[in-house]
């Protein structure tokens, strides 16, 4: 387990270390801060209940992510009119759908100089399955196999989906860059 280097860490201490990461994942799934906070709380309640059954070799962070995803999917199934995963075709905003303030920084010219907020907005603008996989790999640093475990899909699917997600993200950032350049002129 990842806590093996700190064997005296209690369950709640160890679990709280992943709060920011779990909140980030909840935001990625729900895109709503209030819903995300509720989801985080539910995840911790479920985690605490099941902690006694947790095998010592289990990676706690991955385990909590799986709990969160299952909790979210249950919530989606329960609330048919509530939050839901949206098909790619339903959720593919063009550059025109971006928040207006994304265009207001003419100083940012090159991709490498994009500020965190712009990258965040670009990730947020991706379809649900794409932003989820980008967050797991590029923000949280999960391996392909770990992502496969969280998503319950083969590692090959992770590979291909991540490739498509990054391509889409690259386009978004490029489009944004082009618009910024135009404004700067």
């Amino acid at each position, binding site marked *: *387990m990842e*806590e*093996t280097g700190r*064997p*005296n860490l*209690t*369950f*709640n201490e160890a*679990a*709280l270390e992943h*709060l*920011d*990461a779990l*909140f*980030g994942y909840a*935001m990625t799934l729900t895109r709503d801060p209030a819903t*995300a*906070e509720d989801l*985080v*709380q539910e995840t*911790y*309640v479920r985690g*605490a*209940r099941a*902690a*006694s059954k*947790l*095998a*010592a*070799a*289990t990676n706690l962070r*991955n*385990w909590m992510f*799986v709990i969160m995803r299952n909790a979210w999917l249950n919530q989606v199934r329960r609330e048919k009119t509530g939050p839901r995963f949206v098909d790619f075709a339903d959720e593919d905003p063009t550059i025109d759908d971006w928040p207006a303030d994304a265009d207001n920084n003419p100083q940012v010219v090159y*991709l*490498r100089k*994009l500020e*965190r907020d712009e*990258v*965040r907005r670009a*990730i947020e603008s991706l379809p649900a399955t794409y932003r989820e996989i980008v*967050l797991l*790999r*590029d*923000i*949280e640093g999960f*391996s*392909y*196999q770990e992502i*496969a*475990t969280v998503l*319950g899909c*083969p*590692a090959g699917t992770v*590979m291909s989906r*991540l490739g498509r997600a*990054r391509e889409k*993200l*690259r386009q978004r*950032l490029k489009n944004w860059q082009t618009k910024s350049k135009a404004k700067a002129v």
Partner: protein
Amino acid sequence: MNKCQDIRERLGLYLDNELQGEERQQFESHLRECEVCKALLDHELDFLNTVRTSSPLYVASPELREKIQHQLLSKQEELVEAQHEFQRRKRSQAKLTWGLLVAAVLLVLLLPVVIIRLRNNSKAPETGGASTFALMAADVHMRHTRGQLPLEITASSPQQISGWFANKVNFSVQLPNYQESSGQEKLYTLEGARLVGFKDDYAAYVAYQMKQRPISLVITADATAQPSGGEEIKARGLMFHYNAIQGLKVITWSDRGLTYALVSDLEERGQQSCIVCHQGTKDQDFIAPLKPH
């Protein structure tokens, strides 16, 4: 496929540290020679760094942190028990680690003696230098057949077994459903599965039966175990390692991030045990190279 095109399709895999061994070496060797591919790699790295340095995208508010702490504390009784269990498992894990270490040392010291004795006593030719993973697989196979290692799930459905492993091991166990989809005669039955300890982690153990003869499949991440030793046989781009261990036929190999061990007492090299995943007619081409010549 064009070499450059092949390399470019795998830039992401390389930068994600998902290329290993020979594949990684070949990739790096090409990059040293090809400036265009190297430039594309740098460009991709630049892009990924831009995304990655934006971490963390979100930070939990102090109010949420406080709420969670309060929530956890309000479940104090449940939590205390959970914590105790957590610590107990940690301690038993530590004991297990020491136990494995001692076992490994004993194994190293006794292996030459065991091999000599087995060579003298067994009709089956023994192959030396078996990996610890192959030895572990043979051991769990024997313990299971003796009834000392009960299954934690009994099921004949590959999907059910795969699902059972989902939150228990840090890799995906996808068992094929060959005999149902192929419509061929049912040559083997899936019995069930369990976790087995290996190198501070769990490996997945799956039990099959073929004509009343047990077959064991043990799976772990290739970061945990690499097949080595024994007789090396190349087939379909994979390297198989064959060992005879205490009369059992053990075949180990790595593929796509996982390392497998297949154990049986079947004839020759036990290659027929491969049908638990390769039952189709075309798969006979796959099994054939494993037969002794």
